[in-house]
């Protein structure tokens, strides 16, 4: 479903350019759960941003299904992000002065193919993360765990194929971290694809597939059993 061929990503201009990704080849099938593991600055987030069509590739080719993402126009990329991906970030990235309801509504504002009533979809997504009682609470008044659950509700409201989570437990205590991981795993168990970045090796090992990145290169791609 997701195919990356010899992906390179550099930031800045010569001679000060920084190579974030150096020749990544990757293939992720529908329904997989992949943990991306690596130290800080290794390029995990950049790789996730490339997969989530948030960042342009410097060199290489990126396919979703048979479609070459690198050649797509901005509007098509936006459509792809809206319809195929759900994002969960370490810093939650909720719009702080908007309520949970309205934050969850944001992806629907840009959706061209909503199935069912907007209100029902939003309420169902909020209910699935057990936040119905905080539905009309402004985002910046929520606790860290609640913020992340609201962020998950926003990510799944349009029932995307793929959830991209960038260290979703990084800012949470272990109890809330567990709730969040359980919610994401539930999503995967429903047949969706989950790609998650983590520093936490024990969390990474819960995933059937681990990608280890070091210095912009994928140094390990396999099951947790062989992961050292």
């Amino acid at each position, binding site marked *: 479903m997701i195919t990356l061929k010899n992906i390179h990503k550099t930031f800045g201009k010569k001679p000060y350019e920084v190579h974030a990704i150096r020749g990544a080849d990757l293939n992720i099938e529908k329904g997989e759960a992949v943990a991306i593991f690596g130290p800080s600055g290794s390029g995990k987030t*950049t790789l996730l*941003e490339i997969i*989530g069509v*948030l*960042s*342009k590739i410097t060199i290489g080719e990126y396919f979703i299904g048979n479609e070459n993402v690198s050649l797509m126009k*901005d*509007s098509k990329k*936006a*459509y792809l*992000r*809206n*319809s195929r991906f759900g*994002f969960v*970030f370490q810093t939650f*990235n*909720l*719009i702080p002065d*908007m309520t949970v309801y309205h934050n969850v509504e*944001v*992806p629907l*504002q*840009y*959706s061209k193919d909503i199935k069912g009533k907007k209100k029902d979809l939003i309420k169902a997504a909020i209910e699935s993360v057990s936040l119905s009682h905080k539905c009309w609470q402004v985002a910046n008044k929520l606790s860290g765990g609640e913020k992340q659950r609201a962020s998950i509700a*926003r990510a799944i409201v349009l029932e995307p194929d793929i959830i991209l989570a960038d260290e979703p437990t990084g800012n949470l205590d272990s109890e809330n971290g567990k709730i969040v991981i359980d919610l994401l795993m539930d999503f995967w168990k429903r047949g969706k694809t989950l790609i998650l970045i983590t520093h936490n090796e024990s969390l990474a090992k819960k995933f059937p597939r681990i990608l280890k990145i070091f210095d912009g290169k994928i140094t390990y791609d396999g099951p947790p059993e062989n992961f050292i």
Partner: protein
Amino acid sequence: MTVLRKILFKIKKTGFRGVPLNFRTLSTVAGIVLGVAALTASFNFSETARKEILKSIEGMTNDLVFIRNLSISGKSSKKAKESVSESFHDEDSRIKNLITGKNAELLTESINELDGASPVIKDTFTIMLPHVKRNRFSLLGVNSEFSNIFRIRFFKGRFFYPYEELSNKRLCIISKDTALEIFGREKVIGKYLSLYDTELKIIGIIDDFENTPFIDKTNIVITPYSTFINLTGKSDIPHFLVTRLKKDSDNTLAIAKIETVLMRNRNEKLFKIWDQNHYIEKRKQMARTVEWLVTSISFLILFVASISCSNIMILSVNQRTQEIGIRRAVGATKIDILGMFLFEGFILMTAGGLLGIIGGFFLTSEILKPLPTLISSYKGWQFDFTAFSVIRTLGVLFLIAFISSLIPAWHAAKLDPAQALRQ
């Protein structure tokens, strides 16, 4: 309703969530309000000025020819006349060369192309009456052909006949506003007007006559030329002679003939002849200049307002970079983000614009409308709040709102989603 709902949906789709109500927004709106108010008032001023200038030449024909004495001894024309008056009996050859009232008859008799000629001599007088608000009036001394030359339309009564002029009859014709100011709604014909300790019988009330820049049509009293000279003791040196050319006459040829006739008994040309063409063109140019000037100033005002609007939009974009990133991440296109900020700018400008137009209305009614009573140059001008000025202001406003919002909005739309999320 469906269309409105569609528009509202489109606006909501851009992610527009209203404008933050803080000091910066309020001060920006205040700037826009002032700018727009000044702009609306300026448009009203320029529109009125243009209309009034053009009105002053409306109906002005090119077949009136004027002859005026030039100044002598380097003095202004007025001073020259005074000096002439003081030393009228001096054997000064130069004074002999000045135009006199009698030259009007000479011109009519000698030149076939002329349909009458009249001297015009002016003075001002004051009537101290408790009920008269504007008590300064113009007294004109003219001959009987003046009525025909200026196509006078009478409200009541008539003009004086040639014999009445020749016999120094103490008569006068007054303008309608003079009649109203002095006598109110009383019957005026046959009544007497006391000037220079002399009673002048009113025989006519003027409704209107042909426009000319050289005679103010308001507050005038007209007497026969000879009566004027007798009353005021002034010398026979008119302010100017005026003649009307017959239909289809050649102006250049007629002017040349007038010059030839007037130069017959003169050894020095101390007069100037002109028709109204030059004046009409000058006034038209003045109308264009007023409009251009006011429009330029107005654009300057709006430019400042637009910088202010642009500034707040840039700040808004900077403050909401992360939100832009979030929205891009969940499916907003560049166009959506562009629309969101353009709409925000539009709302700012509309709020400021509408309040500014109300301000413009007050500026027009409180500052411009009283101008004609305060400054004599604007006498008779009517400053109104016109729909045209509102339309023009709104047009300029939305253009500037669009331009001032476009740059920050485009900057926001251009942001790479990942980069925006990291900020």
